[in-house]
């Protein structure tokens, strides 16, 4: 079972929740894999403190021009949809940071002057934390704009059992690549107009990807009920609430997971997982009937 923890807005508590759930399930004797797909700013390792045993670099293929073969016809520049190649007079400029690695320049060059060379876009680090808890995250190279291929590579590190995936914020490519083809998406939000605005976008994203979702309200406070109202109107289920608390913020600031702050959080996260599993199973049954 693969569960993604996502949110439209950044800083709502995705990592707190993903880590809490992974540690609570591991403590209960489950085999768990924690994947941090927020490759621009991964933070899960700060709380899980894994022992990293393996590194793997991730590459995309970018063009290199052989000027002895090139006759500056401009074909590569013409077909490149990302404007990564510029042919001017007797020179070809390649903008590696714009290249998406489609390989078109290599395929279409009439002179065979384009070779593809690997360019590193990031690294995956893999390891284990406690007994039965596998860990992997990606770190995007600084200055590289293209994160989705790295996200995809991290997602391949699933290892059976329960997989908890920490997603990047937003609703565009990196988040989409993380959430798609998972069994469930838990959306973490806060009860403010910011939280609501971005939650609505994130819900739309899960619907476009056909992934069932549920809501977790972080920094909940008596009387702040705009998320409750929205969920009721849109037939969405609030699965858990975490209160607004300086104590919790303080623990987070030191890298202490919620489950270490109070045992009760372990119980709450296991209950959350049970509820998610029930939703996933009933969803599957519903789809079978169709």
């Amino acid at each position, binding site marked *: 079972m693969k569960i993604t923890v996502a949110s*439209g*807005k*950044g*800083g*709502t508590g995705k*990592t707190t929740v993903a880590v809490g759930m992974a540690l609570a399930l591991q403590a209960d004797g489950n085999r768990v894999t924690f994947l941090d797909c927020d490759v*621009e*700013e991964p*933070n899960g390792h*700060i709380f899980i403190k894994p022992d990293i045993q393996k590194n793997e670099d991730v590459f995309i*293929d970018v063009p290199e021009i052989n000027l002895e073969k090139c006759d500056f016809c401009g074909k590569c520049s013409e*077909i490149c*949809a*990302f404007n990564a190649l510029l042919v001017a007079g007797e020179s070809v400029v390649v903008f590696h*940071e714009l290249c*998406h*690695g*489609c*390989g*078109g320049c290599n*395929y*279409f060059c009439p002179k065979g002057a384009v070779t593809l060379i690997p360019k590193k876009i990031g690294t995956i680090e893999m390891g284990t934390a406690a007994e039965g808890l596998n860990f992997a995250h990606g770190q*995007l190279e*600084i*200055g*590289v*704009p*293209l*994160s989705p291929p790295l996200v995809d590579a991290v997602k391949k590190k699933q290892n059976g059992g329960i997989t908890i995936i920490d997603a*990047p*914020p*937003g*609703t*565009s*490519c*990196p988040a*989409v690549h993380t959430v*798609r083809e998972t069994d469930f998406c838990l959306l973490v939000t*806060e009860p*403010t*107009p*910011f939280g609501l*605005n*971005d939650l609505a*976008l994130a819900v*739309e*994203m899960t619907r*476009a*990807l056909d992934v069932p979702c549920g809501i977790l309200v972080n*920094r909940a406070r008596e009387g*702040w009920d705009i998320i409750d109202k929205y969920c009721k109107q849109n037939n969405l289920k609030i699965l858990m609430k975490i209160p*607004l608390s*300086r104590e919790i*913020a*303080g623990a*987070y*600031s*030191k*890298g202490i997971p919620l489950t270490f702050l109070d045992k009760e959080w372990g119980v709450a996260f296991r209950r959350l997982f049970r509820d998610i599993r029930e939703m996933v199973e009933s969803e599957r049954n519903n789809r079978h009937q169709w």
Partner: protein
Amino acid sequence: MKEITVISGKGGTGKTSITASFAVLAQNHVMADCDVDAANLHILLSPEIKAKHNFWGMPKVEIDAEKCSGCGICEDLCRYGAIKDGAVNSMECEGCRVCYHACPEKAIRLVESLAGEYYISKTRFGPFVHARLGVAQENSGKLVAEVRRQARELAQKEGRDLIITDGPPGIGCPVISSLGGTDLAVVVVEPTISSIHDLDRVLKLTEHFNVKTAVCINKWDLNLRNSSTIEEACLNMNIPVIGRIGYDITFMAAVMERKPVIQMTSSVVDNIVSLWHNAEGILNS
């Protein structure tokens, strides 16, 4: 014309609340929201939309089943696994058009894709350019570039000499697009180990692109030890810490009232005013 961009690495550190407060304090400026993925600044500025424009993303491809001979060249060439059994999965398609150029039957056509909208608006705090990227759309970097272009044009047209930009979180494509050519990046950080980790990466990014950078510590009294770690790290890198804002739920309360936090009654108001003066000082130096 000067441009100041507020970024953070980690999301949720208070970028938008601080940017909106700058909108109140600054004069003769244009506002821009470059967090096109999950835009929030409009919630605090209550814009009146004056003009709305379509944003066209990369065209996607479609296969004409009548012309397709089933040769499979497109499927072999597609590096994104977006074509299977003669059909295109638009979620996987990167828009590279290799299949379109390669198809011997000319059975693949380009389909324009509406990827979002951008708006030119009027607010109590001056003109405002903002956008909405369609859900699950690509090209946020391109939309960011469009928002910045519009903001610059607007500033020129109206004789305004400052652009204040709310940036996106992270260090990827939209952030890079938000930073190019800006005069000052203000990085809002909080004293949490996560945010310190992200600060390190975002400072490497601004250095990589040679952008003048200053740091503001929000919630600085949440963890004083971490705050002094940040101060020390910035000192070593020769990056000024130009603001220290206390931990205060007034930040959330202001969002509930949909107004910039600087319009609330709280001790953080003075903190933000001095942050703004320091930022202005750097911009004008």
